[in-house]
């Protein structure tokens, strides 16, 4: 019968693994959405880790979720890379959100190269964030991205269809965007804490309009629940009627066709 060994000795000798996760660093990468930050254990995106964003369809605010972060990161020296985005990023729209386009690189890749390109960018350590839209991704490839993000100390975002929610994922954070009954973000998994049972409301449209109004002194779009509000139509129409002028001032402008 061996002598009684104090527990503290074993712990000090590091012979017992305590199953404790790494300490969570809080507030390193705020998402720019205070309500979302409040429910996440890291008070923001997990730094140097993979975040997975699951969507029911394109165009429901998935970019606006990350744009405050991208706007902040593109003011730094490391670029943000988009790997195989599903559409063209609209340069003016991104500028309106405060993104510095000189720090935004777009990588076109075929379906089988998307994960390779994203991993290279993450692993390099030269990128602040990498956003990828993989057509096919399995558990193993996502784990590679997670490791690469950790190696390169970069934020990794993967945008996937909501149908993948049923499959387990090695991502540190999994968010699901929902549009009905209202716009909301479900936190499906967050490392370092329990996922909240209630969704976070995601009022991206109102916020965009109001912030735009503050920034430029005009409020061109009034979000109206009625939609066909005649007042809105009239006002916007008047603005629109002066639009043809915008081309007249630059009659010799010659542009490369976009894409």
């Amino acid at each position: 019968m061996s002598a009684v060994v104090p527990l503290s000795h074993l712990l000090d000798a590091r012979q017992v693994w305590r199953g404790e996760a790494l300490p969570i660093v809080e507030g390193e990468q705020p998402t720019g959405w205070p309500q979302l930050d409040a429910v996440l254990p890291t008070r923001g995106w997990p730094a140097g880790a993979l975040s997975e964003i699951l969507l029911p369809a394109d165009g429901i605010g998935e970019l606006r979720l990350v744009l405050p972060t991208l706007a902040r990161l593109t003011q730094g020296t490391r670029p943000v890379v988009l790997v195989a985005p599903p559409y063209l990023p609209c340069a003016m729209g991104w500028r309106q959100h405060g993104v510095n386009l000189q720090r935004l690189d777009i990588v076109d890749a075929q379906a089988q190269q998307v994960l390779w390109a994203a991993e290279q960018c993450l692993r390099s350590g030269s990128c602040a964030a990498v956003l990828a839209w993989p057509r096919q991704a399995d558990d193993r490839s996502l784990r590679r991205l997670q490791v690469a993000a950790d190696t390169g100390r970069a934020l990794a975002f993967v945008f996937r269809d909501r149908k993948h929610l049923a499959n387990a994922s090695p991502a540190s954070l999994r968010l699901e965007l929902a549009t009905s009954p209202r716009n909301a973000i479900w936190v499906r998994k967050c490392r370092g804490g329990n996922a909240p049972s209630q969704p976070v409301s995601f009022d991206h449209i109102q916020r965009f309009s109001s912030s735009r109004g503050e920034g430029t002194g005009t409020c061109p779009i009034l979000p109206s629940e009625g939609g066909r509000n005649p007042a809105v139509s009239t006002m916007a129409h008047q603005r629109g009627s002066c639009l043809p002028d915008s081309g007249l001032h630059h009659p010799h402008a010659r542009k490369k066709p976009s894409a």
Partner: protein
Amino acid sequence: MLWACLLLPQLALDGVLRRRADNSPLVLVDGPLNARTVVAVNASARAAGLRIGQRLTAAQALLARFEAMAYDASDAQRWQQFLAGVAYRYSSQVALLPHAIVLEVSKSQSLFGSWQMMERRLREDVGQLDFRHRLAAAPTPHGAYVLAGVRDGQTALSHEGMLRLLESVPLHKSRLPPAAVDALPRMGIRCLGPLLRMPRDGLQRRFGAELLRAMDRLTGDAPAGLDLYLPPDAVDWTVELSHEVENIAALVFPLKRMTGDLAAYLSGRDGGVQRFVLRLEHRDAPATDVTVGMLAPERSAEVLFDAARGRLEQVQLPAPVLALRLIADDLPGFVPAGRDLFDERPATALPLEQLRERLRARLGDGALYQWGTTIDPRPEHSQRISADSEGPLDPRPRPTWLLDRPIPLRGALRIIAGPERMETGWWDGGDTRRDYYIVETELGQRAWAFCPPDEQTGWMLHGWFA
């Protein structure tokens, strides 16, 4: 003055060996067809007992299987030129002597440090390129040349020191005219020291002015009379493969060598390369050209190799490859990328330029780009591939995703905002008359859609407010 001599005792063999990945016995043979003589042997052949000077038939009797290649003097010369380009990094005065390169190093010491440090760097450079070499330094180029031939690493920093070292050099290693080297030992003169002390008029009478000139060049009493090397402005190197290669993977080893050589050559020239061509030569088919273009001039061996390999791997070989040729006509100046002293990137980070080249090499030259806005109001022309953005911020809301070309949008829609009349583009025939709306689809997506003016039917989707 301090001259370094880089003696390359087996230049031709090293040149052959460095493009082979294996270590099987190999000899170089020369001479008339019926009396082939071994002129160089590699390590495994030497271990089997093959020696320089043997007849090829004798060698074949000693070892059943070995490869015999013809000695190619022009090949050796090419390698010597290449190494002169590498040495050019250390000095502007580089000259070629038989089997050797001499360079003046006294003026370079303020940049590279003392001769000991420079010697280490030179050895490292040449050793990395896999060339056997001997180094010596002396105040005269011919003195250094003789000392390097005697023993590796001899250094004479002063004139007296050089004379002391030359004192005991046997005449057959003195590189003096052969007639004198043959005759002098019979007169009891076996070393350089006594010869240098002999009365000059007697020597002139017996051996002519040639011997005295050579002795004066050796001691520095006469100018060395060397033609200085000038690096060429273009690179055109060929590696002939030892067999027909059908698989791209087998080209990776010679390619790595070539890009490494190119990097060494470029740093000798203090230049970079932005565009070069790999030409794969076939027996009957026309050569396959693989163009490697980079965003900026580069000269790092890894970047060059990465870029070349990525493009080479996408090539479909029409026929087996016999030779690999590297052609670089334009060698622009190289400006190292500026780095921030307080770089926020991790220490192990891959430089951004290298990452970009790696992505372009695998995904294609146009796969990596940036968008910039233009001042054209038409959405189709509102952005272009450019690092710069023109124009002020548009006060009207713009989507975050833009469709390449508009597509019909069906289903029930709810108008959120609009219309925004777009009536423009008359100046280049691309007239546009549309009403843009922000609409919401049944799925809750926010779309940027347009229809003909005042119609609100026939919706075309042009973007998403994602």
